[in-house]
C-alpha cells in the first residue's frame, strides 16, 4: 500500500535525523457531495485530498508537524522542520511512546470498504439525492420547503507507521443520505414581533456500505414526519417531570458520557468521574461499551491511532464504571494500561476517541416507554453546548413532545432541561430496544425518572 510505505519512509527519515521515537499518519480521502434542492442540483462537490502528520520525540520532548504538500523535494525539509521544533518543547517525564507488545492489527476482516460506493457514478448519486427530496415532499403536503437533500460519500485510506516497528493501513468507505423538511407554521405564535415562523427537522442515514443505509424514500419520509409533528409548538410551564430521550437525542447524549470517561479529561481532573473508577455511577440498566471490532460499523478500525491493536472495552457494567478509555499517555498519567482507544488526526498528538461507543439496548419498545409516562417530556432535539463535564452540570435547550397519560400530545419548544449528569445516569429507569448506529455514538431511547424542565 503506497500510503503505508510513505509513512514508513517519513518515520525512517525522522529516526535518521535523531528522533528517539517517531510516528507518521497519512490520510487520503476522496469526497463527493451532491445536494439536491427544490428540483435541481444546488451543490456538487468532488475532490481528493491528502495530508500527513509526523510526531517526533527526543529526550522527552515532543513536536508535531503536518502538511498537505507532498512534493518530494519538500519532504526532507518537512521532516527536518519537526526535529527543529523539538528545541521549543519541554522535557515531559511521562512518555507517550506505546508499548511494543501492544502494537498490531486485529486479525478480523472488519468489512469497512464497500466497492459499490466507489463504483457509483455521479449521476447515480445525484439520483439518490433527488429521490430523497421527492420522498420529503410526497410524504406530507404541508412540507413546502427544504434546506437541501444530500447524498455524500467518502473513500478514506488511513496509514500509520512508527519507529517501534508498527506499520498498518486500512480503507474505509462511508456513504450517507440526509433529508431536510421545512414548512410554514401557521399556528399563531406567542411573543413579540414573531411572524413567519417555520418548522424544520431532518433525518439521515450513514454507513460503510450501501446496503447498511436506509432507503432514500424512508429517509425523506422520516424527515417530513419529524417536521410536521412540530407544528404549533409552544412553551409550557416549568416543572419537574420524567424525561424520555428519543433515540437520536439519546445517541447525542452519549457524547457527553464519552467525554466524562475519556482519559484526556480524567487525568487532568476535568471530569466529574475522574475519581469514580470501580464505583456504581449509573443505574443497573446503564451498560456502555466501546467496540472497534464490530464488522461494517462506522467507528470500527483494526488498530488505534498509536498502532495499538483494537479491542472491545466495557466501560459501564451494570452502572459500575469499569474502565476509562485511554491512550498511552493518559494511561501512564493514571498508572493504568492503554485501552487501545487513541484517535489520531494529522494535526495533533494522539488522544482518546470513541469507536463504536454505545448504550446496550434493553427489552422495551420506545412506544412502551412513552406509554409508561403519565405526565412528562419526550426530547426530540437538543440545542446548545450546556454540558459542563468538570462538575457534571447539564442545561440544554430542547424541542420535544409533551406526554400525557402515556400519549404524545403536543409539541413544545423554547424550553430547557437541566440536571446533573451523575444524578441523570443514576436515574435512567428504562432503556429501549431500538439501538441503531448512525455514527460512532449510539443509544436506544431511554427514560430519566425526573429532571427540571424550564419554560414559562
Amino acid at each position, binding site marked *: 500500500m503506497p500510503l503505508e510505505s510513505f509513512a514508513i519512509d517519513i518515520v525512517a527519515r525522522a529516526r535518521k535525523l535523531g528522533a528517539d521515537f517517531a510516528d507518521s499518519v497519512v490520510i487520503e480521502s476522496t469526497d463527493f457531495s451532491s445536494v439536491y434542492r427544490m428540483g435541481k442540483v*444546488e*451543490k*456538487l*462537490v*468532488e475532490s481528493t*485530498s*491528502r*495530508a500527513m502528520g509526523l510526531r517526533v520525540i527526543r529526550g522527552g520532548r*515532543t513536536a*508535531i*508537524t503536518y*502538511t*498537505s*504538500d*507532498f512534493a518530494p523535494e519538500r519532504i526532507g525539509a518537512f521532516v527536518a*522542520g519537526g526535529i527543529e*521544533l*523539538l528545541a*521549543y*518543547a*519541554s*522535557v515531559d517525564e511521562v512518555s507517550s511512546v506505546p508499548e511494543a507488545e501492544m502494537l498490531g492489527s486485529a486479525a478480523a476482516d472488519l468489512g469497512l470498504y464497500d466497492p459499490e460506493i466507489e463504483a457509483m457514478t455521479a449521476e447515480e448519486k445525484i439520483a439518490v439525492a433527488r429521490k430523497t427530496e421527492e420522498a420529503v415532499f410526497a410524504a406530507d403536503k404541508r412540507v413546502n*420547503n427544504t434546506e437541501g437533500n444530500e447524498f455524500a460519500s467518502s473513500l478514506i485510506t488511513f496509514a500509520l507507521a512508527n519507529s517501534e516497528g508498527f506499520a498498518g493501513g486500512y480503507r474505509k468507505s462511508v456513504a450517507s443520505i440526509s433529508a*431536510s423538511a421545512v414548512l410554514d407554521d401557521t399556528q399563531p405564535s*406567542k*411573543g*413579540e*414581533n*414573531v411572524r*413567519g*415562523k417555520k418548522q*424544520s427537522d431532518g433525518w439521515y442515514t*450513514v454507513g460503510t456500505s450501501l446496503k447498511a443505509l436506509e432507503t432514500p424514500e424512508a429517509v425523506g419520509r422520516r424527515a417530513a414526519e419529524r417536521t410536521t409533528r412540530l407544528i404549533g409548538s409552544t412553551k409550557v410551564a416549568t416543572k419537574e417531570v420524567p424525561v424520555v430521550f428519543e433515540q437520536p437525542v439519546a445517541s447525542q447524549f452519549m457524547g457527553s458520557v464519552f467525554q466524562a470517561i475519556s482519559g484526556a479529561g480524567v487525568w*487532568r*481532573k*476535568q471530569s*466529574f468521574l475522574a475519581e469514580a473508577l470501580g464505583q456504581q455511577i449509573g443505574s443497573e440498566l446503564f451498560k456502555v461499551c466501546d467496540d472497534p471490532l464490530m464488522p461494517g460499523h462506522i467507528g470500527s478500525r483494526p488498530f488505534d491511532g498509536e498502532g495499538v491493536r483494537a479491542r472491545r472495552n466495557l466501560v459501564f457494567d451494570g452502572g459500575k464504571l469499569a474502565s476509562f478509555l485511554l491512550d498511552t499517555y493518559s494511561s501512564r498519567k493514571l498508572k493504568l494500561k492503554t485501552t487501545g482507544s487513541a484517535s489520531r488526526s*494529522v494535526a*495533533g*498528538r494522539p488522544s482518546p476517541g470513541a469507536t463504536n461507543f454505545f448504550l446496550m439496548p434493553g427489552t422495551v419498545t420506545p412506544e412502551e416507554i412513552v406509554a409508561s409516562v403519565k405526565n412528562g417530556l419526550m426530547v426530540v432535539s437538543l*440545542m*446548545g*453546548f*450546556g454540558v*459542563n463535564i*468538570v*462538575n457534571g452540570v447539564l*442545561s*440544554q*435547550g430542547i*424541542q420535544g413532545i409533551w406526554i400525557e397519560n402515556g400519549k404524545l400530545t403536543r409539541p413544545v419548544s*423554547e*424550553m*430547557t*432541561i*437541566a440536571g*446533573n449528569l451523575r444524578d441523570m445516569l443514576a436515574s435512567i429507569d428504562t432503556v429501549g430496544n431500538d439501538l441503531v448506529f448512525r455514527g460512532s455514538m449510539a443509544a436506544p431511547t431511554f427514560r430519566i425518572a425526573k429532571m*427540571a424542565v*424550564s*419554560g414559562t
Partner: protein
Amino acid sequence: MPAIGRRGFLLLSSTALAALAAEDLIMPREIRAAGLAQSSRLSFEDRFGIDRATMRKLMDVALSKGGEFADLFFEYRVAYGLSFEDGIVRDATRGTTVGVGIRVVSGDQTGYAYSDDLAYERLRKAAETAAAIAREEAKVKAVDVNPVEARDLYAAHRSSLTAPIAEKVRIVERADKAARAHDSRIIKVQIGFSDEVRFIQIATSDGLITSDAQPMAALRISTIAQEKDRRETGYFSGGGRVGLEFFERPDAPEYIARTAARQAIVQLGAVEAPAGEMPVVLGPAYSGILLHEAIGHGLEADFNRQKTSNFSDRIGERVASDQCTIVDDGTIEHSRGSIDVDDEANLPKMNVLIDKGILRSYMHDRISARHFKTAPSGNGRRQSYEHYPLPRMTNTYMLAGPHDPEEIIKSVKDGIYAVAFSGGQVNISNGDYVFSVTEAYRIENGKVTTPLKGVTLIGNGPDSLSKVTMVGSDMKLSDSLWTCGKSGQSVPVSVGIPTVLVSQITVGGTQVKG
C-alpha cells in the same frame, strides 16, 4: 456526515485546545526563504507558478460547460501551536496546508472541486469537475483581471511568524504564573498559544483578482479550581488579527489568565440556578453572542433566498425594540472577525442589519446578492480551499444606547446578570436560540448577589430583541476567540454589545419554584 444538522452555532472553544487547529512557533524555512512576514502577501506565481495565463486557462476550462461565473481560490496556510500544561511546553506544533478551490456557478447551482496539488494537470481536472454543474455550451468568457485594492486591517509591528518562539513561550509562562498566583485553589492551568497566517489569492471570471495575508494569534487558558471535593472550571481567551505586541503589552496575558482563574474560583461558590422566565441583564462585549444567535444567522441571505429563515420576506418590518441598532462590520482593525477582502474578492463594509428595531438588510455572498439584485456585502467567507463560500458574519454588534449600566442593574428586582458565555446555537427556521452562560449572578432588589451554576438561556430571536427595554452606553467588542460554525464550516468572528436588559428570557436552571 451530518452532525448538528444545518443549525448555525457559535462556540468559544474551551478545554478542547487541540481541537481547533493546533499551531505555533518557529518561522517555517520556506517562509523565511521567501522573505515573507504576515503583513506581506504571498506570490502564488513565484512559489507555485500560478501566473495570470494559467489562471485564464483554468477559467476557460471552468466555464466550458456553460457556467456563468467561476472563481479560483488559492490558499497557503502556515500554523503554529504551543500547548503548555503543568508548567511545561507539552508539545510544539507546526503545519502547512496548501490548495486551490475552483467554483463554477450556474444560476443558483454551484459546482466545486479542490486540489491540494497545484500541478497544472490537477488544476485542470478540478476545473473540469467543477464545470460539470452546467451541461451546455460555453456561454461566458472570463474577463481580463483587474486588481482589487484592499486595505490592511491587520498591520502588525511584530509578526508572530517571524518572532522567535522563545518569546511566545515567555507569554505563555507569564499567563501560567498569573493564573496560579490568583488563588491557591487553582489546581490546574492549561494554556494554548496558536498563531497562523492564511495567505489567499482569488481570481474571478468577471475580472477581479486580489490577495490577502490574514494573521490570527490566540492565547487560550483553561483552569480548574478545587475546594474539598468540589471542582470547577474557568476559561478565557484573547487575541485576534494581531502581532505579538498584543500579548506583550503590560498585563495582557496576565489579564486573560486571571479572568480564567477568577471564573473557576467564582464557580466554587455558585448555587443552583432558577428555572423559568425572568428578566436578564446581559453584560457588555461577550453577551454579543445574543445577537449572533438571535438574529445574526437568520439574516444570512442564503437562508432567506431559500426562504428557510424566520426572517424571510421581513425586510422593513419591526423585529426588535426601537432601542436596537445592530450592525455587522468586517472592517474593524485587528478584530478576529475582520477581513481585508472576503473569500470571493469583495470588500467588507459596515452593514446595518437592524436600524432602531426595523430589519434593513441581510448579509450576502455573490449568489444571494445576485438573487436579491443587490451588491455583495463582503460577507462571502469560507473555512478553507476545501469549501465553497457562504454568507457569514464578521464582527456583529449592537450600537450603544442611553443608559448607565449601573442604572440597568438597579432597575431589576429579581433577575439574572449574565457575564460570560461558552457558546450558543440557533434554529434558523423557527428563530429559537440558546446560549450557555458560564458566569452569572442573581440580581436581587437591584443588586448583583450570589453566583449561579452554568445555565442555558433560551428564547426566540425577534421576541427577545423586542424585549430589550434598556441599552447601556458601554458598547464593547469582545476580543475572545469566537468560532462560528455553519454547514460544516468554521470561520473566526467577533461579537459586541453594551449592557442590555431583556425583560424576559427562559432561564434553564434546576430550581423549580413551588
